[in-house]
């Protein structure tokens, strides 16, 4: 009951609330909300939408995990955006320029991506630890620099090559591809979606069963108590940020190794920012994040259907924003109510005992 009330009720209420809000917005703008939402739901069954949602969930999930690791200790890694971009370019360049046995090749690319992501995250981490630079600001700046670096690296006089009007890194040889699960006309699920699931499990185990996870959470809840308990705050910042960056580095691996095999100008942006929102939605809990990622992916992909019924697709972004805001408000309210209830219960039980 407690779990139901504390963990599931807030997001459910928040989704309802924002659906209501968007419904009103739709009515005001003269559209039929029932038709719009109906189109979104029925879109799931169309073509490859379901598979797209699953694939996209995987990508968002990785991004959100990266963010969540930082959040666990109140470290705001706004830089996932830049970390996955730099990691993607370097990994794609690396993958395209070596040939290794199948399996090993893909693994090497993944490792490179993680290392590069971690290295990019190491800069703000080191600045924070040694110079006290606020990570929110430094990671935002690093995002800009990541764009510049990526652009430089794919220049056709550096590592890139021209393809028509596109520009991309050399294609990764087939030995570096990660095959997916083909569902025929419904699309292909990326093999690395399972990497996302694996990361989620690893994250759960780490947070709940290991000393490191405990120290991370302790630092997040009270830096001073953690310090007195022997947790080295600087070390934690460094490790958490590197880990976060390493996971961020994997964000685009499912797509690159499963479908694109290169980094090119169509590279999607903004996944890092979605990751922040999703981590918030999921309360940094691996299950919650999975749910958040799924919801996000659903809104994204089935939002395409809105074009068909003449509703501006932007309503989806409004919905995403309002869900995040109302979820955090709902969680906060529930948290307070629960704490008060618990104190009251403790008081009552002690009264009864004495």
């Amino acid at each position: 009951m407690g779990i139901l009330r504390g963990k599931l009720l807030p997001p459910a209420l928040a989704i309802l609330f924002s659906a209501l809000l968007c419904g009103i917005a739709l009515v005001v703008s003269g559209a039929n909300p029932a038709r719009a939402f109906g189109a979104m739901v029925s879109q799931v069954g169309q073509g490859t939408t379901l598979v797209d949602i699953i694939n996209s969930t995987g990508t968002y999930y990785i991004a959100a995990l990266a963010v969540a690791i930082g959040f666990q200790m109140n470290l705001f890694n706004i830089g996932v955006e830049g970390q996955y971009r730099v990691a993607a370019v370097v990994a794609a360049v690396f993958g395209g320029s070596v040939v290794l046995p199948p399996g090993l090749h893909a693994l090497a690319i993944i490792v490179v991506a993680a290392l590069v992501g971690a290295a990019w995250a190491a800069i703000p981490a080191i600045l924070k630890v040694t110079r006290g630079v606020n990570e929110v600001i430094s990671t935002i700046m690093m995002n800009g620099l990541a764009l510049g670096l990526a652009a430089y690296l794919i220049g056709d006089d550096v590592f890139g090559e021209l393809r028509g009007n596109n520009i991309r890194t050399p294609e990764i040889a087939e030995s570096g591809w990660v095959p997916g699960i083909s569902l025929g006309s419904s699309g292909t699920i990326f093999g690395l979606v399972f990497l996302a699931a694996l990361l989620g499990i690893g994250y759960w185990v780490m947070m709940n069963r290991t000393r490191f996870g405990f120290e991370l959470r302790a630092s997040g809840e009270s830096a001073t108590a953690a310090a007195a308990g022997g947790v080295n705050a600087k070390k934690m910042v460094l490790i958490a940020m590197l880990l976060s960056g390493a996971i961020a580095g994997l964000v685009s691996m499912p797509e690159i190794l499963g479908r694109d095999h290169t980094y090119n100008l169509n590279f999607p942006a903004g996944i890092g920012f979605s990751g922040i929102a999703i981590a918030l939605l999921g309360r940094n809990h691996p299950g919650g994040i999975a749910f958040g990622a799924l919801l996000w992916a659903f809104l994204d992909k089935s939002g395409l259907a809105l074009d068909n019924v003449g509703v501006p697709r932007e309503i989806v972004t409004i919905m995403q924003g309002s869900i995040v805001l109302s979820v955090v408000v709902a969680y906060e309210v529930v948290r307070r109510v629960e704490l008060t209830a618990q104190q009251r219960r403790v008081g009552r039980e002690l009264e009864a005992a004495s």
Partner: protein
Amino acid sequence: MSTTTPAVVLSGITKRFPGVVANSDVHLTVRAGEVHALCGENGAGKSTLMKILYGMQHPDEGTIEVNGRQVRFRTPADAIKAGIGMVHQHFMLADNLTVQENVVLGAESLHGIGGKARKRIQELAKATGLTVDPGVLVERLGVADRQRVEILKVLYRGAKVIILDEPTAVLVPQEVDELFATLRSMQRQGFTFLFISHKLDEVRAIADSVTVIRRGTTVGTADPKAVSSRQLAEMMVGSELPSPETRESTVTDRVVLRVENLGLVAEEGTRPVLDRIDLVVRAGEVVGIAGVEGNGQTELVETIMGIRKAHHGRVLLGDRDLTKLGTLARREAGIGYVPEDRHRQGLLLEQPLWANRVLGHQTREPVSRGQWLDLDGAKRDTRRIVEEFDVRTPGIDVAAAALSGGNQQKLVVGRELSGAPSLLIASHPTRGVDVGAQALIWDAIKRARAAGLAVLLISADLDELIGLSDTIKVMLRGRLVADADPGTVTPEDLGSAMTGAGATSDAVHEAAQEVEGER
């Protein structure tokens, strides 16, 4: 002192918090122009009552009368208008604002925030002897000065009834005397005081009448000149008082902690926070550190714990040099640590009790195995602590925040005595803890000492310090300046030494010889 209308009458005040009734049917009458003391053990509801009078909290039942007129305060602003001011238990000052800004805040309509206000502050300071420079940032002031600012704040608003919630807790005896002199002169100018203190001799020194609160209700009002401290205390507790006294010495000659020439510099170019500290604690010995807050005790403890990095000097546990190790390694080496602020440093408030058991022990049995936590072990051992230390809780899965302060502290002490430490560093182990919990904690420390534990005790409660310690060292401006023999020293002597007034008694001697003697 006319006997016309009383300044304040509180009748039938009841205030409930979730799970606690802080005040129930409290009655209090304060005559105009008197110093009225309010006594009661921790959590008795004194602060709550005063916050109600000051409009910060709203009574569930009951009425307030000020100068004969019934009032309802929605906010402190209403209370201020009615001439009531409050100096809080914990200072309420903004460090990064100047004294003047702190004083005029909220009362800007009186004299603006500029030169006129400054003049008025200086006038007030002159009239009451509370001198402080209005232009200086509060962060640069010591405790006594901060307290002056707090009182000035209240005066500036034209308060006639002034609530002082434990104003002496952070002061040394000499400063207390100064404060009392100020209060008396202000009393002559017609101010009324409500004065809260746990220190009963102080109450008897300053108060004209005293009201005792127990478990949220008024037990009665007495004339402090007519009752003894002991009688008062028993009114508060409702039973015999425990005492911190340790009977026979258990000191051995095995050195457990040795601190050599320890130094700490907070910021390049500033004066050292710790300066040439030499200290030895032996097995079975309690070494107490006395000192006015802010003289480096906190830093000393945190440097020994490795939370701060020593500038120079060494810390040895037994034969092992800890100087280069981190906090965790020092804990693993056998140091238990009761931090001074349990909320900030001792506990993860929103985590369950068993997770709090893990904190600081995350590398050790029984709560972990290698890199992995052992949840069953942690829970089992938490249950042991709950039982052994009489932590009043319905279970070990409740959040630490749900416990009362005393029970939280018992949990912390229990945790820190787990895993057979060879040294316990206890900072203010009974601060803000009620009498029952206090007795239990004293008892635990005494038992561990008897079993050969070395204890470094920091406390502002001089009775506790004198009662528990085998040796007392006095700390002043980052240095250990004097030693005292707990068998003979009085709190007053200690107080003089703490403020640097020099040794006034045989029981306190300059530290230099003692240190030399040890080498």
